[in-house]
């Protein structure tokens, strides 16, 4: 009977549905890799470690809002783009809720990943089964430890005293709330921890790279160099007996910054730098010209371009130097965007080829006080060619030290890849990379950064020469040493010696012997400003020396980019204010993001924020 057939059919269908019940939902992806399996396999564990390395920031991107801001916030440069956060921050238009450049989270994620790696790598059966497995695990673990120390160091530079988390274990995400409320540790505790971690890591790491494939990893030399930087910062006035921070305390009253100056901190810093030098692994990079003669210009240019030359201690292989940095530095007509400007004060800082400082200071109306002895002239145009300039270039750019020509693009110069783009660069209003018709791509200061632009790169054809981004080089160690030694042991000839080694490589005469401690300090800091220009040191240097109040606030000068119709139109070559920056005492540190303050009742905000 038809009716019964149908009923039976339905019942069978129902039964079929239900028989499938047991595994209907069990299609969940249970054969996916779990985090436990990652730590059972070698390649996956190595990938995990690579992931930890990636929290070393690619600082070649100094412009985008997700980039690293320390160059654009310092007095050496101006990022053209008024919709970028650096612009708002320079105007003082930000607060703890702005969440600009929130590296607090970034580095703490790196710290957790590093800790988790150390916690778990020890049971990797595949590595343990291999030859030298245990040693490899020790090495990898030490790399993670060194990375973690460096992440803490980066936090310390940006935010001051931070929270030191448990060393051996990560905190479970579902732990009860009480388990993740911590107060900040004091600055000195942080420094001691970072130093001891670098020391501990160094014990299990090779001194230097044995295999070409290892370049870029943490090793003993890198740990020592990074440690030397941390100790230099710790000895500096901002953190060494800074009474401005007397009330910088936790809620329970614990002082976060020591209140008594301790000269031995400089000694510790000097010793740490000296220890790196004493490894005898590195030499100041020197490059000869076609004729086989030492060429300071080429040396300063190529020290950042030639991968792992004798001076490089630590570098990041993957970076955006071509796609972002060069693109921002290159003038518009050559395919770039003219976005990385150089402030007038940085241009003024470069010494003359005779080693003299051209400008001693500024009058209240912003006009420079010229050092007559230097031979610097600020009016008129040259009538003859010089090794670095053609006739017709403004006199301001004449006879400067070679580092100036390797670092700054000015009107009348050429792009490094002159073969591809032969036009003379004009940054004046109607110039080929000037404001007129430039959309948003023009320098607001009338100068562009030239440093670390490869002469074979061509932005117009997207042909970019890849190279590691240098994060630590011997020149810095020399200058760290000289600076610390001049404080720890004034008169020690090494301070002058290593400063002069930098000057020698820069192609300018040595400093005289008879400088006072204070004079030498100024010259060391000037060398630092010029040698390490646009390498993301300046923001920190002005802060740790408590100079930022003078350098980072007030009127900022450039040339009159709203004027000028030709290369010799004097209306362009005149100092004008392009920006008035706001600096208050709170700007010595970044604010901890407000959302983080809310989440941890014990976490105090930085002073003034």
């Amino acid at each position, binding site marked *: 009977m*038809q*009716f019964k057939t*149908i*009923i039976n059919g*339905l019942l069978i*269908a*129902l039964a079929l549905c239900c028989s499938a019940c047991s595994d209907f*939902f069990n*299609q969940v*992806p249970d054969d*996916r*890799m*779990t*985090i436990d*399996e*990652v730590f059972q396999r070698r390649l996956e564990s190595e*990938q995990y470690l*690579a*992931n930890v390395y*990636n929290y070393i920031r690619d600082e070649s991107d100094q412009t985008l809002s997700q980039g690293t801001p320390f160059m654009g916030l310092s007095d050496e440069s101006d990022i*053209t*783009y*008024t*919709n970028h956060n650096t612009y708002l921050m320079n*105007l003082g*238009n*930000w*607060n703890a*809720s702005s969440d600009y450049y929130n590296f*607090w989270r970034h580095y703490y*994620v790196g*710290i957790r990943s590093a800790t*988790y790696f150390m916690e778990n790598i020890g049971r990797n059966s595949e590595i343990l089964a291999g030859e030298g497995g245990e040693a490899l695990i020790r090495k990898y673990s030490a790399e993670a430890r060194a990375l973690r120390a460096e992440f803490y160091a980066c936090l310390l530079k940006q935010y001051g005293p*931070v*929270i030191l988390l448990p060393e051996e274990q*990560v905190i479970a*995400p*579902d732990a009860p*709330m009480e388990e993740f409320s911590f107060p900040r540790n004091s600055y000195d505790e942080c420094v001691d921890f970072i130093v001891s971690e670098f020391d501990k890591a160094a014990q299990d790491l090779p001194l230097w790279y044995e295999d*070409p494939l290892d*370049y*870029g990893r943490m090793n003993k030399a890198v740990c020592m160099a990074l440690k030397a930087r941390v100790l230099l910062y710790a000895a500096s006035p901002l953190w060494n007996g800074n009474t401005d921070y007397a009330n910088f305390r936790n809620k329970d009253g614990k002082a976060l910054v020591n209140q008594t100056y301790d000269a031995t901190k400089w000694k510790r810093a000097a010793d740490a730098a000296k220890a790196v030098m004493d490894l005898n692994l590195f030499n100041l990079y020197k490059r000869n010209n076609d004729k086989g003669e030492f060429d300071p210009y080429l040396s300063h240019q190529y020290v950042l371009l030639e991968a792992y030359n004798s001076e490089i201690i630590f570098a990041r*292989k993957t970076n955006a130097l071509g796609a972002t940095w060069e693109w921002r530095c290159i003038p518009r007509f050559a*395919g770039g965007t003219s976005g990385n400007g150089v402030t007038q004060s940085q241009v003024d800082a470069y010494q003359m080829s005779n080693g003299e400082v051209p400008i001693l200071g500024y009058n209240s109306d912003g006009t420079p006080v010229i050092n007559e002895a230097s031979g610097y002239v600020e009016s008129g145009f040259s009538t003859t060619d010089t090794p670095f300039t053609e006739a017709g270039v403004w006199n301001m750019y004449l006879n400067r030290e070679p580092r100036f020509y390797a670092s700054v693009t000015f009107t009348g110069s050429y792009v490094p890849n002159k073969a591809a783009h032969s036009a003379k660069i004009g940054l004046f209003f*109607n110039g080929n990379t000037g404001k*007129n*018709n430039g*959309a*948003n*791509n023009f320098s607001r200061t009338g100068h562009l950064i030239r440093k670390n632009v490869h002469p074979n790169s061509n932005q*117009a054809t997207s042909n970019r020469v890849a*190279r590691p981004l240098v994060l630590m080089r011997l020149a810095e160690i020399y200058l760290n040493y000289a600076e610390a030694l001049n404080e720890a042991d004034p008169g020690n000839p090494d301070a002058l010696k290593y400063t002069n080694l930098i000057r020698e490589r820069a192609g300018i005469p040595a400093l005289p012997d008879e400088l006072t401690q204070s004079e030498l300090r100024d010259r060391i800091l000037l060398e630092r400003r010029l040698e390490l220009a646009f390498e993301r040191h300046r923001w920190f240097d002005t802060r740790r020396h408590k100079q930022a109040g003078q350098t980072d606030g007030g009127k900022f000068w450039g040339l009159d980019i*709203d004027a000028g119709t030709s290369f010799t139109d004097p209306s362009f070559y005149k100092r004008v204010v392009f920006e*008035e920056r*706001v600096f208050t005492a709170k700007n010595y540190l970044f604010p901890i993001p407000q*959302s*983080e303050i*809310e*989440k*941890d009742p014990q976490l105090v905000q930085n002073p003034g924020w």
Partner: protein
Amino acid sequence: MLKFLRRIVLITTCLSVQVAAQLPAQKLAGAVTDEKGEGLPGVSILIKGTQTGTITDTKGLYEIVVADPAAVLVYSFIGYQQQELAIRNRTTFDVVLIPQDQSLEEVVVVGFGTQKKITSIGAQTTVRPEELKLPVRNLNTALMGRLSGVMGVQRSGEPGNDNAELFIRGIATLDRGLSQPLILVDGVERPMNDIDPEDIGSFTLLKDASATAVYGVRGANGVIIITTKRGTAGRPKIRVRYTEGVTAFTKLPELADGVTYMELSNEASATRGGSLNYTPEAIAQTRAGSDPYMYPNVDWYATIFNKNASNRNANMNISGGNEVATYYLSAGYYSEQGILKTDALAKYNSKLNLDRYNFTSNLTLNASKTTRIELGVQGNITNRTLPGAEDMSTIFGYVMAIPSVFHPVKYPDRLAGSTSTVIINPYNALTQRGYRTLWSNRLFSNIRLTQQLDDWVPGLNVSGMFSFDATNNHNNTRTKNPDRYLAIGRNENGELEYERTFIGTEYLGFGTSSSGSRQFYSEASLNYSRTFGTHEVGGLILYNQRDYIGTGGDLITSLPQRARGIASRLNYAYASRYLAEVNFGYNGSENFAPGRRYGFFPSLGLGWVTSEEQFFEPVKDVIQFMKFRFTHGRVGNSTIGGRRFAYIGTVANTTGYAFGNGQSNLNYDGRDIGEYAVDVTWETAVKTNLGFELMTLRNKLNVQVDLFKENREGIFLRRDALPGFLGIQQAPYGNVGIVHNKGIDASMSYEAFIGKVHLQFQGNFTYAKNRVVANDEPQKDYPWMSRIGQKTTQSFGYEAIGLFRDSTQILNSPVQTGDVRPGDIQFRDLNGDGVIDQFDIKPIGKGAYPEIIYGFGLTGSYKNFTLGAFFQGAGNVDIIMKDEGFVPFQAGSERGNLFSVATDRWTPENPNPNAFYPRLSFGLVNDNYKDNTWFMRSTNYLRLKTLQAGYELPDSWFSKVGAKNARLFFIGYNLLTFSSFKLWDVELGSGRGTNYPNMKTFSLGIDVNF
């Protein structure tokens, strides 16, 4: 509906007229007409108590021989009230049949079935499908204001991208995106966007727990149930409908011309001590317009949009059948021509247009007296052409980024454009970047078998259904990015000199992508419904399961999504007076840990039809019907966003790192924990509904009011309270949120004759207000900073007091950030610490999602004419204006268009304290444009959503071609908007009005029945 029924030739059993011998037979004749006096063919006339009778002829005339003078004749016809008349020796009998008051017999759609409307308890609303026949492609956009309980916004009118965000009774969870209702078409979860309104048989909204509990973990956000039309027995009926429309933007933002831009740019800089950006000569040249290449002055909107576009809609369907089989077949075509300009130079078509072809076929087979098989197949094919590189909202963004004076649209012989990657020539982006063709095919099919088991247990039937749906989408992209140039000057001969700003490709590249999905759905059920005297009993038990696979980018998204469950209902009515109902859903989701997959979602409903009480009889002349309903129950929501299988932790591919000295290199991918495993489950919603229904004024006034309350708990959220220093990659999820939502929805309809004019009024109203009770928010320093206690869509910002008058006032006021001068906005220092900062941010306004949605309409008909208007409005909604283009010179002179309203600004010369903009600035130099009340505006609105006029052509005109009747009509859509907000289309929301505005349409059509 009645009109069609009138034309049905009833299939009746052949009647033999028996004449009683002993009594004198009496011959009786007459005409049966409808209420308009037209003859009704096919009316059945029976002598009461016998099988004897006749039917009326095509003109409604009849003859019948009656033996017994005391006999009573029974006149019956579908859709009309049955009439009984005693003969009493009369020989002619003209009868007027009155259309049936359907409300008593009307059935309503409920979860997995239907119920008699009079005894249903759940809160549901329906809309007549006729009302949804609007000149829009997307059904989803036509619902607001038409059904009580539907709330939402339509943020874009872009063809193919114009989905309104709909919420049933408001937003009750923390993530708007997870508040979408469940949409069922013919019982299967399917999208409704591309259904041809012509094919809709019924459209129902289920709102409360008793209606949605059977859907268990899928029901918390409400359910929309759409059924497509089925055929009815009778000879074939053919219906043809065609409309042709002209569309235009409701409102585009008005932008400043070049001269205004330059002058205000100078002012913005100079008023804060900066230099002038444009020389007087440049401004003069721009004003003169003599050299538009060197001194351009471009209205970018005019370069990319035509004034009008068009749409076209055609549908033809045929239905009919006999007692064995009925059918409904339909084919539809919809086409929309975009409003974008195309360039004659382009060798291809980048017109934004869309063509859609729909077909529907529904068959019902009565395989035996007790067996019914229903087959439904629907499908559509959509073809779209788009500009190659960008979607429309991006191109709108480009218009906002590029000032009118930057460069011309194009040069005489080449394209214009800068080197910038953010200031893009909108004209190039639209017309010079190639084109994309998208086509998608969708097939929806379902077969259902229902077997009556009355022989076994009276009132019992069993039913099984299987559905298979498949969709696929293809996207062919042909793009290029040609060279562009900037004129840098003119040479001695006056010829333009160019700088090539971009080296690109002149030939079209090719790319393709496709995606698809398939879904199996099956259900089996036992239904029972029987009346024992005054007791009506009903029961349902149903099993269903769904298995859906879409193409996903990774393993997790490509795994099938599965759900299954049991639904059950027991309902009881005593004398149609006391009603009780129990519903439950027991179902699960694979998203949760094995022990936590299944949930039980019960609900209880009680009803009291007061008008059926004895004591009500005296007032029944005044109030014909009155009912109270109460329901209470629990529903779930297992939609938890992108995260599936939350109980399993994941390993993510992260950014890796590379090592090596430059010659030998080693690149590693990165790996880390992606998501932490968490023991989570669905959200639950406890819903309570109290409803009241009333019919009065002889059933002409119909009122329905529902009060509702919902407590949503265990809302699936990322744990916001975990501090950043824990270093967790992605904060783990938890069932930590709680939202309470309550409100009222109501509808009414009224019908009246004024003379010969038939008037119909309908209106509805929905108000819903939600409140965050818990959201895992960390402790805030001040209570006003907290989101707890606020609406889920609350805006936060500073409270503006006014504009600073002078520098003394600034000095004596709390310190504000940045460059603050007279004419800048003064903010209130809420915590009194003398500084305006993050601690002074508080809830401002009512948020960008309306709390009130209402609609009302009036239709009048007189003879062959009908005229109707429908209005829709929203209340308790406001927006914050912000971002590039709206903020003058947000990025200095570098980029950013300017609204023409910028001339209304504060200046030292004219320090207007009520100026629209504060003192102009170059870049964001202070907090003027942080979210604050100065730039908040109410966007309450009332729209003339539709204006319809129709004329029914006299039958005589058409009878020769075989048409029964025909109607000409006009529909205007979105014709008028009343709102105090004028800057851009009022529904687009916060920001700067850069979405494709809603469209208005003028449409003419014809509707013919054969």
